[in-house]
Structures are given as C-alpha cells and as structure tokens.
C-alpha cells in the first residue's frame, strides 16, 4: 500500500497561491510584430522554449509579450515578468531582472532587495529557492529578457 505522509506545505502552496493562477491564464501571452526585439530562451533539460518580444520607445518598455511552451512555474514566471517590467525604463528593468536572478541563487531566507520585498508575488515566487531543481524554470524568462539587450547572446540556456 502507498505510504504517503503529508507533503511539505509549501510546494502545493506555491502552486495554489501563485503559479496556477498565472500559468492557467498568463498575462501578455502572444507575439509582437517584427520591429520588436525578440529573444529566445531554451531549457535543454525540459525542452522548454520561450520567446520574449519587447517593443520600446524612448528607452521605456512599451509592450512586452511572450510565447512558448514550459512548465507552470516557467510560464507563471514569464507572465509575472511581463506584468512587472512593462512601462519601466530599460535600465530599471535590467536592474530588476538582475536582482531577482541573484536573489534566487542566494541563501537568504528573505530578500534584502526593496523592489522584491515590496512586490508580493515576486516575494512568494522566491519560495522556489527551496526546490532547487526548479530555479532554472523561474530563471529562464528573466535571463531571456536580459539577453535581448546583449548582442552576443541571442539564445539563452539555463543549463
């Protein structure tokens, strides 16, 4: 007979509170036409593939969309990314992306970054730190976003 004790609360909590809401109905899902910057991200472990489209005006991100296939966590992360970075300046957006990625690789319980601390959903998403195999799923969209502004790298891989 199956011998299952109770789950750690957090994984189902993370899914139920945040991930499924975004993943089942992601924000800004779709593409932009050819004048937008386009950046591709791949996670070779899962075969996930993400395209992010960014259209800017006067150094501000006016539109941002994504499409692709991925697990609920990576889709949710991309959905949140588009919501958060829309209407910010490119330099501000890059700063947020960098802080969030480095937050995920830190050992801190609670973020010291003001932006992350003050964003409820990002704070919850940080709980993925407890599931290290999935950090790359969260990372994928953020790294793909950053590589859009780096001429050398056009395909991002999280491994």
């Amino acid at each position: 007979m199956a011998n299952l004790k109770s789950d750690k609360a957090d994984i189902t909590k993370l899914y139920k509170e945040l991930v499924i809401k975004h993943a089942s109905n992601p924000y800004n899902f779709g593409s932009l036409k050819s004048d937008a910057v386009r950046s591709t991200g791949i996670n070779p472990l899962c075969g996930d593939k993400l395209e992010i489209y960014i259209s800017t005006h006067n150094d501000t991100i006016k539109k941002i969309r994504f499409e692709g296939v991925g697990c609920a966590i990576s889709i949710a992360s991309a959905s949140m990314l588009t919501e958060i970075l829309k209407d910010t300046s490119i330099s501000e957006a890059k700063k947020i992306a960098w802080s969030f990625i480095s937050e995920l690789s830190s050992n801190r319980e609670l973020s010291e970054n003001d932006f992350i601390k003050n964003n409820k959903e990002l704070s919850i998403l940080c709980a993925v730190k407890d599931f290290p195999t999935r950090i790359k799923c969260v990372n994928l969209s953020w790294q793909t976003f950053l590589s859009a502004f780096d001429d050398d790298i056009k395909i991002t891989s999280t491994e």
Partner: protein
Amino acid sequence: MDAYRKDFPAINQSINDNKLVYLDSAASSQMPTSVIDEVARYQMNDHANVHRGIHTLSHRATMVYEKTRQDLSDFINAKNTNEIIFTSGTTESINLVAQSYCRPKLNKNKKILISHLEHHSNIVPWQIVCEQTQSSLEIAPINNKGEIITEDLISMIDESVVLISISHVSNALGSVSEVKKIIQAAHKNGVPVLVDGAQSIPHIKVDVEELNADFYVFSGHKMHAPTGTGILYGKEDLLEKMPPYKSGGDMILEVKFTGTTYNDLPYKFEAGTPNISGIAGLGAAVGYLRKIGMINIESHEKNLLDYMSSELKNVDGINLIGNADNKIGVQSFTLENIHSHDIGTILDHQGVAIRTGHHCAMPVMEFFGISGTARASLALYNNKEDIDCLVAGLHKVNEVFS
C-alpha cells in the same frame, strides 16, 4: 523479488519525509551493497595501475579488471574476451564505432540507417560523422504505438548502407524492437548492425551470438554498476580491422617517432588508464544479476509493468504514451494540461522519483507532438507498493492543479 530490496541502500531512505519510491532506473539504476563493497574493497586492497606493472598490486588490479571482461563475455555470450572493449559508457561505445568503423567507409554515396525512436546518443554521433563525410543519415519511421515499423526499416536497406544502428529497447517508451529480424535482413544485404542495448541489458537475457549482432553496446550504470563504465561488444573480425579511436598508453606495442605499432585486441581500443574501480564494480554487478537470474528479473518486471500500465489508467486526464505490443521496463505518460515538470516536482515532494522531459529522445517527443512526458521506469527492486505510491501521487498532482 522483494527479498532483494534490502540489498540496495539507496532505495531504503526517506525523501522529503516520505519513503523513497525510485522509479527512475532507466536513467540510472541503484547499486547493491555487493557492488559498493567491491569498489571499496578494490580501492582499499588491490588498487594499482593495470597491465603495466609486475608488482603484486598491479597484478591483482589486472586480474580484477580482466575477470570482469571474462564475466561480461560470458554474460552476453561473446565468443571470447577480445570482443569485449571497456568504454566509459554507451555514448562512448557508439562514438567509437561511428569514428573508427564508419568514418573511413563513409562518403557521399553512403548512408547510416537509424530509427526515429533513438536516444540522442544514437543520433548525434551519426549526424556528426555523416556531416564529416558528406554521407546521409536515414531515419526509419515509427508508428503511433511507438514501434519501429520493421518492414519500412528493412525496405530501406541496400548496399549503400554502411551500418544500421538501432536500440534494442527504447528508453523513452520501452518498445522492444525486432532486432533479430532486422539483423537477418541487414546481413542478407551485407550490412552490419549495431544494437544499442543500454535499456535491454538490465532487463532481459541478451545473447549476442543468437542475435548475431555485429556490435552491441551498453552502460554499467543502468545495470546496477558504477557510472563511467560501458561495453562495446564487437565481432572480432570487425574490431580487428578498425583503427584505434583514442590513443595513448596501453594501446600500443611500440612507439617511435618514425611510427607506432598498435596493440592487439581488446587493448587497441583502451587507451589510457581505465576506470578500474568502476570495472571492479561492474564485475560484481554482473555476478549479482546472474545470481538472481535474468529470467526471474524479466518475469518480475513484466508483471509489474502490466500492473503499472493498468493502474495508471485510473488517473484522471492521463494519456499513456508508447503502447508497443512488446514493451519492457518503462511507461511514459502525460496528464491533461499539466506539464511533466510540474508532475515531477509534486511527486518528488511525496518521495516518488520519476523522470520528466524529453528523455534525450526529442525526435520521439516531436513525433507525438509533445514537449515531454513523465516516465516511470522499473528495476528488479521495484514492487507493487511503489506503483501504488506513484498512482496516489498522481491523484495529488491532479488535486493541486484542480
């Protein structure tokens, strides 16, 4: 078979406060205590470099190493130990054949023939060698059950084919290919066949002579031995004619700057200090499998796979991928609207370890129009309780996503 569970320390542990249910043996299997102990014993008592020394430890190390070669020769019924080449794994074995056997024979009028069902390790080395030689790589099709369509493959064989390379058992779907029939057809056209046995060797009795395979390759770590060990079986007359792949110490008779003479089989293909402690463990693993008996393992796993496939059907939204008539060891599946990674994570938190994703078989996924599957794979130490845990875990996944 439950009596053997206690031999495997790794499966007798808790993960995330649950008893571990290890259903990922197709990726890498766990080692029995006898293997772990033999590695440690070797390292504590017998270690030295092989073949090069005349002192006692070097002799002991050589004996351990060559005894495993004999064990493997017996295990797969090779003609003699010259046909058993130690490699670091299936991947290296295939690369060796691609570069050493095929590359000199390939040109723009020649082909390599594989199937749509292969593991990346049985695709990419062929893509590369075909590119290097401007030859073409032909892909035999599969059907909706996930089986190689044997007649189609056979109809693609002609004298321009330098080698056919197919898996005995698919790692993604568990389909057992009609290897013997394919080999017979190939030989009628004078075409040799490499069989990728990574997923067959731990599960069924393999007899290379009866199959009449020209090359048969597999990995130690999928048959309860340490990683970093593998086998290339090749018919002696083929191996004899092949140039070395890697070169260095041990694979030469004489080195002069004016020219070097290579050593005889099997050493010609074993350049450098090999993975001696791993090979010691591989010998112990073969001993363990022979003690239990491959026939017993096969029938135990067959029952278990039947049970698993039928129990899984009770899970809401499940779609079993791979329904070959002859199937062993693994069951792949998807859940409606739930990505395999999410399944994997939620199962892991209940102690159930399965593999998710493309299983290094992207073309198979593409064929089924999916990005990946969840895959539960079996080994001799699994039992019905493991499957019950898997099914209960999947109910939980559905509940989280409901």
